[in-house]
């Protein structure tokens, strides 16, 4: 809900701004420029005449006129008017004098006492255009007489109802300069530089597009800049290179295309492209070309100012609506800012349309160019921001990629090692399988058969042979078992051994107490270590069965902490025991020696304790891999 609240507040602020701007721009007279601090000339006489010099006006019929004079209202059907004013001059200094015309449409020339002082530009067609440019004529005081002087101003317009002359200011140039320069800077100089900047930015953006043709938005933005830059020519090009109708068509066309492109830009930016609207805009843009083919200037201005400009306002409203919709869907700051700029453009655009259609005082001048400036700056910033963000994202991804590659590499390494282990196990299993096949009806089977056969025969020799055969069979079993990864679990290994030992124990009438417990996994188990453990345990049992004369034995496992945790296997007999120092046969016999040797080989500890209560053989296997 808080979200929605913020959205509503945001929109309320936008509409307040919109209406405020609308009021101050359209409903209160817009006086952007301070008039010079001298009295203005308002009362003049005029005569509508095509004369090219004041000398031709001797017999003219002059009528009074108040300045500013908008021809559309006062003299709708003329294309040139001569204005005359009488000045009283009292020489005070040799200072340069000036006549300042803040606004004229389209061209003016100044004559003092019948002498030509200067003009905005040539009067022949195409007429020089100064509708956006203040004029300041400066002249020597020697041109004036003491007392009354006659000033004649020739004003011509390209199209009859566009003619206009503002109030005039007569004073020493120094007093007029500030007002003139400020207005000239804001109206002309600034716009000229902005136009240069627009073309430059347009070129840069266009090169962006060349580098990434899939990003159409760069192309659109560069076109907006170029097209608007061209449109700006209207504001500072005074001597146009071709005829006025074509020039007007160009200015109107570029305005329309810029607006259409802006809508396209917004659609692309939001990512919501309405194909139907796009087609409609395309058709409109094509129709815009039609303006160039209109037969007369009147037709150009009529179609342009009425139909073309009004349709542009509608397109502009649609763009604003798009932005509003997007903002309502996801209130983002960039869209919000665009909404403000859109409102600015719409109001300023409306102002200019009203102005060219004589509904607003022509003296105020065109202002849309000042709305397009922040808009284009913002668009450019957006694009640069996008560009920088994508570079940042690419950098982040690249950095991340390195990290991801590292992680993957480690995982692969691990996987590889696992596979290696599995391959080894597989090989082992295959090898085991092969040996098993060999054993199946081969040596193992034969040994079993031999033992079974020998069981039927009494006698020492047979017994000895049988013992040997049984020993061989046990050995064989150990070798095969050691290849089985299941046996790497120490309790299972011991359990399997028990099965094999059971016959021997039964024969010797020895009871076995079994006390195997859960044990942690022995690290680094291998067939090699497996075999060592089995042989040590087997040897311990064999010794006890042979020599201890016991009735009970015990096998016990557990974990004991020495310097590190060790698993222990105790083989205990409760027999007569032996003195390690005295019983050379046992303690130094091959069996015990072998046990020690094997323990050493597998890095285990073997402890043998014997007393007259029995013997304990303890095998200790480390549960942690030794470092280094």
């Amino acid at each position: 809900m808080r979200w929605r609240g913020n959205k509503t507040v945001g929109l309320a602020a936008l509409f307040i701004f919109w209406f405020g701007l609308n009021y101050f721009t359209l409903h209160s007279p817009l006086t952007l420029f301070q008039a010079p601090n001298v009295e203005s000339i308002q009362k003049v006489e005029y005569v509508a005449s095509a004369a090219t010099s004041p000398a031709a006006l001797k017999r003219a019929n002059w009528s009074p006129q108040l300045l500013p004079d908008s021809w559309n209202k006062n003299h709708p059907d003329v294309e040139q008017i001569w204005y005359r004013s009488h000045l009283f001059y009292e020489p005070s200094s040799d200072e340069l004098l000036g006549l300042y015309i803040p606004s004229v449409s389209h061209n003016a020339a100044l004559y003092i006492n019948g002498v030509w002082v200067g003009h905005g530009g040539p009067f022949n067609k195409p007429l020089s255009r100064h509708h956006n440019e203040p004029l300041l004529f400066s002249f020597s005081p020697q041109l004036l007489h003491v007392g009354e002087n006659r000033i004649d101003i020739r004003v011509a317009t390209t199209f009859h109802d566009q003619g206009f002359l503002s109030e005039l200011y007569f004073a020493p140039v120094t007093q007029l300069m500030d007002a003139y320069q400020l207005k000239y800077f804001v109206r002309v100089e600034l716009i000229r530089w902005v136009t240069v900047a627009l073309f430059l930015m347009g070129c840069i953006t266009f090169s962006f597009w060349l580098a990434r043709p899939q990003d159409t938005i760069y192309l659109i933005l560069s076109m907006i800049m170029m097209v608007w830059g061209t449109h700006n020519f209207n504001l500072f090009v005074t001597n146009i290179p071709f005829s006025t109708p074509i020039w007007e068509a160009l200015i109107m066309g570029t305005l329309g295309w810029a607006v259409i492109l802006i809508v396209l830009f917004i659609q692309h930016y939001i990512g919501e492209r309405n194909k139907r609207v796009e087609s409609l805009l395309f058709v409109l843009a094509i129709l815009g070309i039609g303006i160039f083919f209109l037969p007369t200037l009147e037709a150009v201005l009529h179609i342009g100012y009425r139909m073309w400009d009004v349709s542009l306002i509608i397109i502009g409203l649609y763009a604003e609506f798009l932005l509003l919709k997007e903002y309502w869907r996801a209130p983002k700051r960039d869209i919000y800012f665009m909404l403000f700029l859109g409102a600015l453009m719409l109001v300023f655009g409306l102002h200019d349309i009203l102005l060219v259609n004589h509904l607003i005082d022509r003296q105020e001048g065109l202002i849309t160019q000042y709305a397009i400036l922040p808009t284009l700056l913002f668009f450019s910033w957006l694009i640069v921001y996008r560009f920088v963000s994508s570079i940042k994202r690419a950098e982040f991804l690249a950095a991340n990629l390195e990290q991801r590659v590292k992680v993957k590499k480690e995982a692969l390494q691990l996987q590889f090692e696992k596979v290696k282990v599995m391959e080894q196990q597989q090989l082992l299993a295959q090898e085991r399988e092969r040996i098993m096949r060999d054993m199946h009806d081969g040596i193992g089977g034969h040994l079993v058969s031999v033992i079974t056969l020998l069981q039927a025969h009494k006698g020492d020799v047979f017994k000895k042979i049988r013992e040997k055969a049984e020993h061989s069979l046990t050995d064989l079993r150990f070798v095969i078992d050691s290849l089985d990864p299941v046996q790497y679990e120490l309790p299972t290994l011991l359990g399997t051994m028990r099965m094999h030992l059971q016959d021997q124990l039964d024969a010797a009438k020895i009871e076995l107490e079994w006390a195997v417990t859960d044990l942690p996994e022995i690290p680094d188990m291998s067939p090699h270590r497996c075999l060592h453990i089995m042989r040590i345990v087997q040897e311990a049992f064999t010794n006890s069965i042979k020599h201890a004369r016991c009735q009970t034995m015990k096998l016990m496992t557990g974990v004991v902490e020495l310097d590190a945790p060790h698993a222990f296997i105790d083989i205990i007999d409760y027999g007569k025991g032996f003195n390690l120092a005295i019983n050379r046969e046992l303690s130094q016999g091959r069996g015990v020696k072998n046990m020690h040797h094997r323990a050493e080989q597998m890095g285990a500890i073997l402890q043998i304790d014997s007393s007259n209560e029995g013997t304990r053989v303890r095998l200790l296997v480390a549960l942690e891999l030794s470092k280094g």
Partner: protein
Amino acid sequence: MKRYTLTIVEDAADVRQRLVRLITQHTAFELLAVSTTMVDGLAALEKHKPDILLTDLGLPDGSGIEIIKAIERLHLDCEAMVISGFQDEHTVFDALEAGAKAYILKHDESQKITDAILSMMEGGAPISPVIARLMLQRFKQPPKTEAFEPIEALTERQSKILKLVSQGFSSKEIAEKLDISYYTVTTHIKNIYSKLQVNSRAEALHEAAKLGLLMQ
């Protein structure tokens, strides 16, 4: 006394002759057929519908496991017993998965062999530490296919029994340790065998279904 009917499938002549002698001499058994190949073994099984199938696994034309599987398929009331070679527990385990109930070692003493068959018919289930360990592994991780969930899981008691077997304890010792009867221990083991078979069958079906799905 009821005599158990038997068929034998074994390709090794000496083992086969010994078994035939052993069975025919024993009053508890009636030998119906002896085969040397998988195909013959299957035919004999279908024809005679014996109480006991005694089969070797490595046969010249296939595996004895196929004959064991046929029991289930043909809905026969027959207990399969594997004639195993020397220390062949991994293969025996495969046979248990297929539905075998027990195994004998072909070089075991005669008495042991007949005892084992009778013990099976009375509900006994032989097991070794290695087989118990393999069982635990099998039930712990549903193998190969990730999607496959074993239908039958071990009870806590069954796991405990398997663990003790894998550690080398005898059924008698386990009964004492868990304070249950010897008979209960063997029943548990038998049940575990059944669960193993159910799971393996379900997994085979699952695999087949998956293959079928891929083929579409």
